[in-house]
């Protein structure tokens, strides 16, 4: 099943997908334009958990940035204020020269995970969603890179629209993903090309820390990055998971 969280008629609702629209708990069905989309949350949680993201996790993207593929996962973190929902807006800071989208499969942890083996790792996944991990490269510095000013800006990480149950995603390591920039496909890849796959990432993280329900892992992006400008419509899309729209605005 596909779950979402929306605001409608003065309240926040947990909804499910119904023939392209959203179904309120009352049974009423609305079109996606009728609601305000919020970042999805795992059932039973009220806030996003810890948010991890992967750098350089597709070989083609690492090459594009002229980096060697890393020996260990390159993991950074994001604050909860960085998230925004489907059909939201993200600011391109005035005067920057290089801000780009990154289409990523987001894994939402479903149960407490500590020292999980790769073989069992998928048992700990609650579901999947789509992320757009916008990056403002102008602000990169060489301390704890990529730093928060680059990657954890307010509302700079669209997430959603749907949280798709893990049970309905039988092969998460074989999903086509792509980004449309103003209607043109500008980025394409497949999750099979991750350097560190989902079981490896869960085993790695849970090997030194405890993961909890609602924690989110953004699994990295393939090649195909181009800059975005104010007014651009950016859709990051993963087959079977969702199509996440965002608009770039000026501050």
């Amino acid at each position, binding site marked *: 099943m596909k779950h979402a969280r929306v605001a409608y008629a003065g309240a926040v609702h947990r909804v499910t997908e119904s023939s392209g629209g959203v179904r309120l708990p009352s049974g009423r069905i609305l079109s996606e334009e009728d609601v305000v989309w919020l970042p999805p949350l795992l059932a039973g949680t009220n806030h996003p958990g810890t948010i991890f993201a992967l750098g350089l996790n597709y070989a083609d993207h690492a090459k594009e940035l002229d980096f060697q593929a890393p020996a260990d996962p390159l993991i950074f973190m*994001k*604050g909860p204020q960085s998230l925004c929902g489907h059909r939201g807006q993200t600011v391109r800071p005035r005067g920057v020269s290089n801000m780009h989208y990154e289409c990523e499969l987001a894994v939402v942890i479903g149960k407490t995970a500590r020292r999980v083996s790769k073989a069992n790792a998928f048992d700990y996944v609650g579901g999947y969603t789509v992320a757009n991990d916008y990056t403002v490269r102008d602000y990169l*510095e060489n*301390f704890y890179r990529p730093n928060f*000013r680059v990657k954890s*800006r307010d509302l700079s990480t669209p997430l959603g629209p749907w949280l798709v149950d893990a049970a309905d995603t039988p092969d998460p390591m074989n999903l086509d993903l792509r980004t449309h920039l103003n209607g043109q496909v500008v980025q394409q890849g497949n999750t099979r090309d991750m350097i560190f796959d989902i079981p490896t990432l869960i085993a790695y993280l849970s090997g030194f820390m*405890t993961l909890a329900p609602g924690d989110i892992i953004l699994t990295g992006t393939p090649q195909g990055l181009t800059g975005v400008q104010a007014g651009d419509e950016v859709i990051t899309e993963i087959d079977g998971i969702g199509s996440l729209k965002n608009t770039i605005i000026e501050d």
Partner: protein
Amino acid sequence: MFPDSGRAVFGVAFNFRGELARLSGQLPVSPVLYLRPRNTWNSSGAPIRIPAGTDALKMAGTLGVVMGPSLSYVAINDVSIPHDSYFRPAIRQRCRDGFCVIGSEITGQLPGEFRTFVNGELRSRSSAADLVRPIHRLLADIGEFLTLAPGDILLIGEPSDAPLARAGDRVRVEADGLAPLENRVEPE
């Protein structure tokens, strides 16, 4: 098992003057942040677990600024596995369970001094006067790109004389006007 509060706890590296020597001249343009995720939150009286294969942990007794209508302050022991490379985020060194001891009391008055003791011996004493970016400048510089919400905590930095502690050591962090934090380092 972990709180579902949405609260974020951020730390800032290189914010004590004595730390700048580690940077070999290259100063950060913007505050260097890291997250203390919810699995790291710990309280006074509970053990701090030292991972197998790690000899000693750094104990940075410091202050957290608690966001709200007015600022308040909380005592913190910001624990990490010592590391010399600051190029990539130190997730493995900082995000271990129980590595951020947060006091249960807050005060509206900035504590004049904070101190770290290991086995009763005073090993670190600092004050907000030693900061590279004073608290209000830090909040302004971070606020340029990241909004701290009410209840969020910002750790003001790791004192440059933060001591190491080993399994069996007792660590005490004091901040003027707040109940001390006392934790024992125990094997994982």
